[in-house]
């Protein structure tokens, strides 16, 4: 497999330095990297899982609507960004590993490289308990 594009590598280097959870996907939605804070959300370690397909990661952290019903993958900001190559921001609920509901906000943005090519997407998770 060829090395990732430089724009993807630099996003990972940045994510590695942050204390907020970050997901990075390729254009097909494969979760190609998540940082240590994001491991808490997924309940898994990147070193253990490696890359994950969208169908797996999008349900692993049990996203829910306000009424507690499950969110479909296509309703997630990151999937919106992957579909339309545009930024997206949304608040919703997830269930923690301790079965506790937690309100979070997610901001996602497309990675558009120097040559204008859509290379993947990044999602940043924020604690929005106070929103």
């Amino acid at each position: 497999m060829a090395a990732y594009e430089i724009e993807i590598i630099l996003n990972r280097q940045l994510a590695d330095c942050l204390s907020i959870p970050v997901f990075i996907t390729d254009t097909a939605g494969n979760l190609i990297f998540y940082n240590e804070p994001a491991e808490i959300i997924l309940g898994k370690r990147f070193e253990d899982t490696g890359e994950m397909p969208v169908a797996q990661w999008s349900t692993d952290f049990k996203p829910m609507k306000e009424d507690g019903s499950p969110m479909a993958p296509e309703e997630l900001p990151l999937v919106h960004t992957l579909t339309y190559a545009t930024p997206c921001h949304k608040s919703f609920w997830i269930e923690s590993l301790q079965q506790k509901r937690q309100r979070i906000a997610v901001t996602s943005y497309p990675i558009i490289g120097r040559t204008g090519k859509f290379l993947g997407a990044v999602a940043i998770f924020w604690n929005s308990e106070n929103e």
Partner: protein
Amino acid sequence: MIVNIRGVRGSIPVTGPETAGYGGNTSCADVSEAGWLLVLDGGSGIQKVTMPPGFHSRRIDILLTHLHLDHIQGLGFFQPLFDPSMEIHIWGPASSSRTLHARLSRYLSPPLFPVLIRDLPCKLVLHDIENSDFEIGPFKIKSRFVIHPGPTVGFRVESGAFSFCFLPDHEPALGGRGLPSNPNWISGYDLARESSLLYHDAQYTKPEYAGRMGWGHSSMEDTVSFSKAVGTRHVLLGHHDPGRTDPQLDILQRSFDKLNRDDINIDFAREGTSFRLE
């Protein structure tokens, strides 16, 4: 193919007896085979480029890694540009905002330079490249964007079973954890993988790098780690800091000699050295 190292200094040319051994010219190398000539970067070392044996095509290709001044400052003094019988192709990294022509014109125009690009007598062809694969004469060339401020590519030049990788300005260990262990996440990996000869940025010692992270250059130690990760057979540590003297580089060379193994040679690059890859 024959690789000639023409300029090994980073940032600014230096002169004087204390740097004459390794050389004071800025970034340039050339690669030739079967009468074809590639010039890699146009730093002040480009003055030393000569036509290879059997050169007959009247064509020269200049491959620019990026447009920082130490990589283009010799361009305006490259005599073939002023020869109407010559065909010069300049290949450089694409930008999302301006063409290669527009960006080079910032330097090759008054008041910085007396001659406009459009007034150069040679037949000049400019190529904006990105993550590109192309062929020039007997050479297969790969360019890839790499970690360095501003649009910057590295090059891999292949001929037959041999390859030369040119990464004069490159910081693959940028980030909190240094060089990644997974090759998929290493900037420049595809270019340098199992190369016969690698020329790589090694401007800083490890303590110096600690205070210059993000400037786009590598520590010598990181470059050795990169070289081992990509499996090159011979690495030339280059882009020497302009303040580094010959005696200092000699001491550093001896300290790195201990790391030389059967499967990799580590040398500090010297201006005027040649390598025959065949």
